[in-house]
């Protein structure tokens, strides 16, 4: 029922729509992700942003913005390069994204331009070493982080 509207959104932001029995995924380029999420959230019943999931996939970081309506999820998916991952923030239009973005900033090192927690810590301790990679990245080595934090 929502498929046509979602296909529209995908087309408008240069993305593609794929559907499984439970999840409709709209893949969009990183510079369009904020607009695509806003467009999705304006569709009937889709105002609820369940969360934002970040994944380290080797060379890139993949993000899923998961909206829920009825028996389905709508995932707006995008990917950014790992060297300097940068995205626009959703906070100005969808304040519910504030803490989810801040969490991803902490654990995967994605910079969300416009998030009030930008450059501040939400989950990590204040003395988390700046030279250590964000802890959920594949290259993060717990033993090395403990050494840098002088815990052993």
């Amino acid at each position, binding site marked *: 029922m929502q498929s046509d509207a979602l296909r529209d959104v995908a087309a408008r932001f240069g993305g593609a729509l794929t559907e499984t029995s439970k999840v409709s995924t709209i893949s969009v380029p990183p510079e369009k992700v904020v607009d695509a999420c806003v467009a999705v959230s304006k569709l009937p019943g889709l105002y609820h942003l369940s969360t934002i999931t970040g994944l380290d996939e080797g060379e890139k970081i993949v993000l899923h913005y998961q909206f829920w309506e009825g028996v389905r999820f709508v995932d707006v998916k995008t990917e950014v390069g790992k060297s300097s991952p940068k995205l626009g923030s959703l906070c*100005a239009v969808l304040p519910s994204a504030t803490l989810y973005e801040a969490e991803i900033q902490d654990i995967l090192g994605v910079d969300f331009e416009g998030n009030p*927690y930008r450059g501040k*810590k939400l989950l990590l301790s204040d003395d988390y070493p700046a030279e250590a990679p964000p802890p959920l990245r594949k290259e993060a080595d717990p033993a090395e982080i403990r050494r840098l934090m002088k815990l052993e």
Partner: protein
Amino acid sequence: MSERTEASAGLTQYSPEGMMPFGPVHPSLKEPEYFKLILEGEKIVQVIPRIGYVHRGIERAAQDRTWVKDIYLFERICGICSFAHSLSFTQGVEALTKFEVPKRAKYIRVLVAELERIHSHLLWLGLVGHWAGFDTLFMWVWKDREHILDLSEAITGNRVHKSYSTFGGVRKDLPDGIADKIRPELKYIEKRATYYAELVRSEETMSVRTKGVGRVTQEKARELCPVGPLLRCTGISRDVRAEDPYAAYDDIVPDVQTRVEGDIASLLDLRIAEVIDSARMASEALDKLPGGAFKAPVTRTIPAGESDFHVEAPRGELFYFVKSSGRSVPDRVKIRTPTMANILTATEMLKGHTLADVPVVLTGMDPCFGCMDRVAVLDTNRSKEYSISGEDLRQLGIDYYRRGNR
């Protein structure tokens, strides 16, 4: 950045230099919060949430453990709604596989999930009673909650960490004759809950401390996306069990409770009504319980794929994202617990109230945390920062209302 965004994250009017890190606060949670309150006199004007003091890196740890070991790991995220975590994870993983979960297991899952909801809501009701200065309620309710914990132990083998839901069903069948033990207890809980509903409505201590306190509007709720009772008390009828049924909720349908006031009093009313409805649903699960197997055969590896799954935990929507690449360990599991979704709404609820209302309002969101013991206070009139303990804060609230500030 818009003013509204900064305000909703609580970052305006206050520079981060004064941010004082304290905690750890509660060993049993992923997300104990610490709120920094900015006051003008006694009025709260700004609230800054900072979480993560006992963040244990469970999502990272899960990537090094096998699928089965992860069930036990995720259960330890929460010491109250542990079954909701294992239920969400196992069903999220089952969605990637061809495991045929037997019908009996689905009904048993509903039974245990509803018993857990009853004990979680009763725990909360007792705590609100305690923070409001009505300790008799606290003792009564927690005594009644023991009945449910005993049932939990009889069914699953443990009171808290049940380790009951597993891939393909549940770990063991219901013990013989347990239905005869459960039914009278559910009737007892229903009777007590009906009494408590009347009690909190008529008892002055409760109504003075909760009516019109911690109000959140429906518009704000749509904006900040809280989940569970916090959302439903503003009149929005959203419940994962009803909207996106899992386990046997397509057959055992919840009577979704909503209230319109959006204050702590409406949360009290709503949660007690949910206790009664949960008792009804647990009893229905027993009545409709089919025979047959309680667990399907499963494989050690999970086929490659991604799945989004959520359940209605006692505090609201609990979300799991699971990614497998066909190995014996998961690639990535992302968990969004209900309290994480509710924090921003809680900061809204506090604004405009006095320090005396903080314990009741923060407990009102059912945050599952013990950090009430450490609250930092910054008085903008006096430009100094001090902290007060949870017990002092509780006493402050009680004295404040005793002095006749109503």
